[in-house]
C-alpha cells in the first residue's frame, strides 16, 4: 500500500515546495517530528485503526481527512493518549516521537508525560469556567510554576501567539466562557500553546465556528507552524487544502494515501482518494 511508504519516498515525489514551507523547491522534506508505525487501535472488540504507518514532519501541518467514522479523530487522539481515560481501549504498534525516540504508546510511558509534550485543541471550544488568565496559565500551574512574573509573561506570549491578546488584554480576569465562540477557541489554542508543546493536535477545531472565526483560526494555524508541529483533523477538504502541507486520507480505519497536500488534491495516486476529493464519494 502506498501509504506505508517511508518518508524518504515522499521526497522523490515532491514537485514543488509545500505552501508556506521554508524549504526551497526540490529540497529534502523537513525532518520527522513523529512517526506512527503499524498503529492499530481497538475500542473493546471493535478495531478502529488498522496498522497505520505515517510520518509527521516537523514544523509542518499534517491534515487527516476522510468520511465520518474513518478513524481520523481516533488516530489523532492516540498522539496524546486521550484514549487512556476510558476503559476497554487498546493500542498496538507505536508512535515514535523524535528526536528522543520515545514510543508514546509504550506502557511504561506515562500518558501525563505524553500530554505534557503533545497538546490538544478540541472540536467544541472548551474553556474552563475560570478567568481568561487562569485558562491560559493552567498548563503551567499543573507543572508547578508559581512565579508570578513568569506566569504573566507566558500568558501574554500565549495569547499573542493565539492572536487574542489585543482583544482580551484589558479583561484577563473575566470569565473565559463569556467570549465569542471564535475567541473561546483561540483561548483554548493559547492554553495549549502556553506549555510550549512539541506537537499541537487540532480535532476539527472550526466545526463549531462561523466562517469569519474559521478564517481567523486557519490563519493562526498557518502562523503556528513556525513554532510547533501540527496535526489537524478536518471534515472540510477546502480547509485541509488551505492550511496543510501534508494530507492523509483515511477510510474505515485504514490510511489510504499520505502525501504532500497538493499531490493529494491534484494528482492522487489512489482512485479512492480521488473519488473522495472530487466529491464522488463521502
Amino acid at each position, binding site marked *: 500500500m502506498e501509504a506505508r511508504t517511508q518518508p524518504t519516498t515522499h521526497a522523490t515525489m515532491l514537485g514543488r515546495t509545500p505552501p508556506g514551507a521554508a524549504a526551497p523547491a526540490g529540497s529534502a522534506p523537513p525532518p520527522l517530528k513523529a512517526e506512527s508505525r503499524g498503529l492499530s487501535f481497538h475500542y473493546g472488540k471493535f478495531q478502529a485503526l488498522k496498522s497505520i504507518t505515517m510520518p509527521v514532519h516537523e514544523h509542518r501541518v499534517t491534515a487527516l481527512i476522510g468520511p465520518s467514522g474513518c478513524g481520523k479523530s481516533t488516530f489523532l487522539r492516540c498522539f496524546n493518549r486521550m484514549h487512556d481515560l476510558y476503559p476497554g481501549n487498546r493500542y498496538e504498534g507505536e508512535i515514535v516521537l523524535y528526536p528522543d525516540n520515545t514510543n508514546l504508546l509504550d506502557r511504561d510511558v506515562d500518558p501525563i508525560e505524553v500530554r505534557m509534550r503533545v497538546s490538544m485543541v478540541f472540536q467544541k471550544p472548551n474553556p474552563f469556567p*475560570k478567568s481568561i488568565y487562569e485558562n491560559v496559565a493552567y*498548563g503551567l500551574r499543573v507543572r508547578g510554576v508559581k512565579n508570578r512574573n513568569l506566569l504573566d509573561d507566558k500568558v501574554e506570549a500565549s495569547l499573542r501567539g493565539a492572536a487574542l491578546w489585543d482583544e482580551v488584554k484589558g479583561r484577563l480576569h473575566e470569565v473565559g*466562557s463569556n467570549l465569542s465562540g471564535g475567541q473561546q477557541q483561540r483561548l483554548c489554542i493559547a492554553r495549549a500553546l502556553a506549555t510550549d508543546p512539541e506537537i499541537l493536535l487540532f480535532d476539527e477545531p472550526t466545526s463549531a465556528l462561523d466562517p469569519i472565526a474559521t478564517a481567523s483560526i486557519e490563519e493562526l494555524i498557518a502562523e503556528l507552524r513556525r513554532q510547533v508541529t501540527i496535526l489537524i483533523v478536518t471534515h472540510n477538504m477546502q480547509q485541509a487544502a488551505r492550511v496543510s502541507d501534508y494530507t492523509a486520507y483515511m477510510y474505515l480505519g485504514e490510511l489510504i494515501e499520505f502525501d504532500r497536500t497538493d499531490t493529494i488534491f491534484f494528482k492522487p495516486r489512489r482512485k479512492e482518494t480521488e473519488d473522495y476529493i472530487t466529491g464522488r464519494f463521502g
Partner: protein
Amino acid sequence: MTYVAQTPEQIRGLIAKAKRRDVAFVALGVVALGIGFATFVALFVDMLIDGWARLSPEFFAQFPSRRAGQAGILSAWVGTTLVMIVTAAVAVPLGVAAGIYLEEYAPKHWVTDLIEINITNLAGVPSIVYGLLALGLFVYAFGLGQSIRTAGLTLALLILPVVIVATREAIRAIPGVIREGAYAVGATKWQTVRDHIVPYSMPGILTGVIIGMSRAIGETAPIITIGALTFIAFLPPAPVTGDFPFLSFEWLKAPFTVMPIQMFNWTSRPDEAFHANAAAAGTILVFMTLTMNALAIWLRYRLRKHIKW
C-alpha cells in the same frame, strides 16, 4: 383522498385541536400545583395562628418548664443547631469524598454497580433503623453516650446517601470535554479533581447537602431511639472558653434535646397551653428549614454565575 391536512381550513382546525390539549394540560398542572401549595399554606398558617401568641424573644431564651407560659425552646434550638453542625461536619466530607471516588476513581464493574444500588437504596431506609443502628454502634459499642456527637453521627449516616448521590449527579453534569481539556494540558487525576471537578460540582453538592440537612433537622425517631432527653434545663458547655486553648469540645459529649422532640413532648401533654408552645416551635422549625433552603439557593446562584459551558 388525502390523509394530510392541506387546505388552510384543515390546517387551522388541526392547530385548534392541538391547542385545546395545551389548555387542558395547563389546567391540570395548575390544579396539581394548587393542591400542593394550598396544603402547605394551610398547615403553616394553622400552626402560625395556634402558636402566634407564644412567639416572643423570651420563647427563645427560656428553658422548658412545667408551666406552659414560661416554657421556651432555648435548649431545643441550641441542641438542634449543635447536632446539625456535627452532622454537616461528618456527612459533607465523607459523602463528597465517596461521591468523587465512585465517579472519578472507582473502576466500573459489578462491584461498583452493587455499591451504587445499595447507596440509592440506603436513602430509602426508614430513619428508625438508623436510630437502632446508632444505639448499638455509637452508644453501646463505641461508648459515645446519649450525646450531641452520637446524634450528629446518626443523622450524618442518615443523610450520607443523599450527599453521595447529589455529588455524583453534580459531577456527571460536568461536560466530558471540560475534563478532557484538563487532562490534555497534562493534569493528573487529582489535579483535575481539585481544580475542576470539585469547584464545578460545588453548587450541585451544596444543594444535596442542604436537602439532606433539611431532612435531618426534622428527624425525631432516630434521635429518640439513641436516647435524647425530652426535658432539659441546661445548655451544653460553651465551645469557646476563657482559658487557653480557648476552644472546648466538651459540648460534643453533652446530653441534649432537639426541636422536633421538644414539639413531640409538648403535643403529648394534656394541657392545651402546651399545644400552643408546640405550634410556635413548629413555626420556628419551618423557618429554620426555609432559611437553610434560601441559603442553598443563594449559594448556588452565586457559585453558578461563573460556571457555564
